[in-house]
């Protein structure tokens, strides 16, 4: 395995949890709901995903546990923000506190245990292609799923009627409501989907990346996922670019250090964040200041009149 190939493999692994969580959040935000609790849902996904896999011995069941945990937490968020018209930003941050606490309680019994990580799934013939074979077709199931997920979200948002309605709800909930669409119900599904994806992204960490559980092991990835949704201008395909950009700079700075370039490690560690900011500025500049790409109703409370 050449160095370049190895770097690509590491980049894809590092980007996958971000991509999974961000993809779900993108759908929720497209429907107009800003859920800042991604970090809390991810760490819950990590704790419950590990618990599920440890107890059953199955990565798949672990992943389902992770999805369920993320979705369950997002249901609490939905009940508050959609059902009770609570401010989304405050509720999302409170959700993070709750998720971190709960995951610690649930995971406490599993600290120090280990599981068999999700295996790489080789695809006959395709994996054998030189260089790109291993990179594209030598990954674990989560990676394939994350790519399929984004493709599916793209197809849903831009090629289906339901997707069109979801976008309409996010852009103007009053108009969508006037047209007779069930705004709150659509948002509920979008939030649950977002929670499930965040849970899966969190579960990826103990199930495939580092097969053990430690409290707080998501280490701020939920925040990065949130930032990546913004980076993508709420477009699924650009999200892939953003996630892999962030992952690539993260990995490359480690390699640069191992080469012994002598640059202060603090500057190297800051690289992924700086790179994301700079690229976003460049993209925004190219696009011009022609209005924000954000869904117009993002973060706003909606209570139907009757």
């Amino acid at each position, binding site marked *: 395995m050449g160095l370049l190939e190895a770097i690509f493999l590491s980049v894809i692994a590092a980007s996958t949890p971000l991509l999974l969580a961000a993809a779900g959040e993108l759908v929720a935000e497209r429907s107009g709901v800003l859920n800042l609790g991604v970090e809390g849902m991810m760490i819950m996904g990590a704790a419950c995903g590990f618990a599920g896999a440890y107890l059953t011995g199955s990565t798949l069941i672990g992943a389902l546990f992770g999805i369920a945990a993320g979705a369950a937490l997002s249901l609490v968020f939905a009940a*508050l923000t959609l059902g009770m*018209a609570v401010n989304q930003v*405050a509720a999302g941050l409170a959700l993070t506190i709750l998720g*971190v606490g709960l995951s610690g309680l649930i995971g406490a019994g599993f600290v120090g245990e280990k599981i068999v990580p999700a295996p790489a799934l080789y695809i006959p013939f395709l994996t054998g292609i030189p260089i790109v074979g291993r990179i594209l077709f030598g990954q674990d199931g989560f990676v394939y799923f994350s790519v399929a997920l984004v493709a599916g979200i793209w197809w849903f948002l831009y090629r289906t009627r339901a997707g069109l309605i979801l976008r309409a709800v996010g852009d103007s909930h009053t108009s969508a409501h006037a047209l007779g669409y069930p705004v709150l119900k659509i948002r509920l599904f979008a939030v649950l989907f977002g929670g499930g994806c965040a849970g899966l992204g969190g579960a990826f960490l103990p199930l495939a990346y580092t097969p053990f559980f430690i409290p707080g092991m998501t280490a701020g990835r939920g925040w990065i996922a949130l*930032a990546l949704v913004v980076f993508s201008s709420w477009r699924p395909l650009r999200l892939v670019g953003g996630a892999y950009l962030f992952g690539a700079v993260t990995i490359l700075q480690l390699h640069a250090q191992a080469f012994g370039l002598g640059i202060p490690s*603090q500057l190297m560690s800051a690289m992924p964040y700086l790179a994301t*900011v700079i690229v*976003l*500025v460049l993209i925004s500049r190219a696009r011009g200041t022609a209005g*924000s790409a954000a869904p117009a109703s993002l973060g706003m409370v909606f209570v139907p009149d009757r």
Partner: protein
Amino acid sequence: MQLVLERRAERSTKIAILSPLIAIVLTLVTMAILFAILGKNPIAALNVYFVEPLTDSYSLMEIAVKATPLVMIAIGLSFCYLANVWNIGAEGQFIMGAVCGSWLAVVTNGTGAGPWVLPAMLVMGALGGALWAMIPALCKVKFGANEILTSLMLVYVADLIMDYLVRGPWRDPKGMNFPTTATFDPVANVPVLIEGSRLHAGAIVALIVVMLATVMLGRTIKGFEIRVVGAAPKAARFAGFSSDRLVLFTFAVSGALAGLAGIIEVAGPVGVLQPGISPGYGFTAIIVAFLGRLNPVGILIAGLFLALTFIGGEGAQISMKIPLDLTKVFQGILLFYVLACDSLILYRIRLISPFRKAADGTA
């Protein structure tokens, strides 16, 4: 049968007063259930959480110390949020304020500089925070780059800049090469209000900030402009208010306040610049801002309340051996209840039968 939320004709004063009580009662019930499962006394827990800290002068002062940075940052953030500007990076502005103010403390350390040092540090701190906040503001105004991403990412960068400085150029020469500046000289310290406690003059600064913000938001054209741009951007444009200028203004205010909070924290309770000066104040302050309904006095109350849950949670860990994770769960649940009950001030819950709903539909 279905429960639905309905907007009240006018905000309910009765609920406004009752809502915190309802929230506490709900928390008490939840706690009772959880504690029963854990086999601990729920009344004792409530006592440790909410009563003991409020009946002890030491704890009261500690609540004020903890609330000071939260309130100052949250006031600044409320300016942004009222104007629909999404500054998520107050944590970074806090750190850069601490860094810029500390620079003066580091270079004057041991030189016998006069009492001008502290005021100058505070100015530098506010400036540092404001300048750091100008980066996302300018990126938004000039290039249309979304401020949620830029302000958040700059938090990590600020943290690493501080890390570099305290491990490198600013390291205490007598500090055995550990990552910390020399302990600040007395002239570089925020004075303590009551001897033997940690209650410092920063608490008074926070109160002044609350008062100034109240006046500014309620009584000045600028305050009006912020509200209008936030609530009705199109109307604001007709009125000749520039949203770009307001982005710069609100970011500058919130950055300056976060930076001021940062330098006060470092020159006050901490006394040196070192990694870990903020236990996430910049993020917690976002909750404080919204819990206080973006209103200065509300923010003051919310800041004190949140500080109470931290101090009470610590007390619960000590005297009841309740794990930290459980106190976090309580904190999360309590916030949910408070937010939900708060919502009842503007809305009411109604029970609607499907029959009636159908009738509504045809009407």
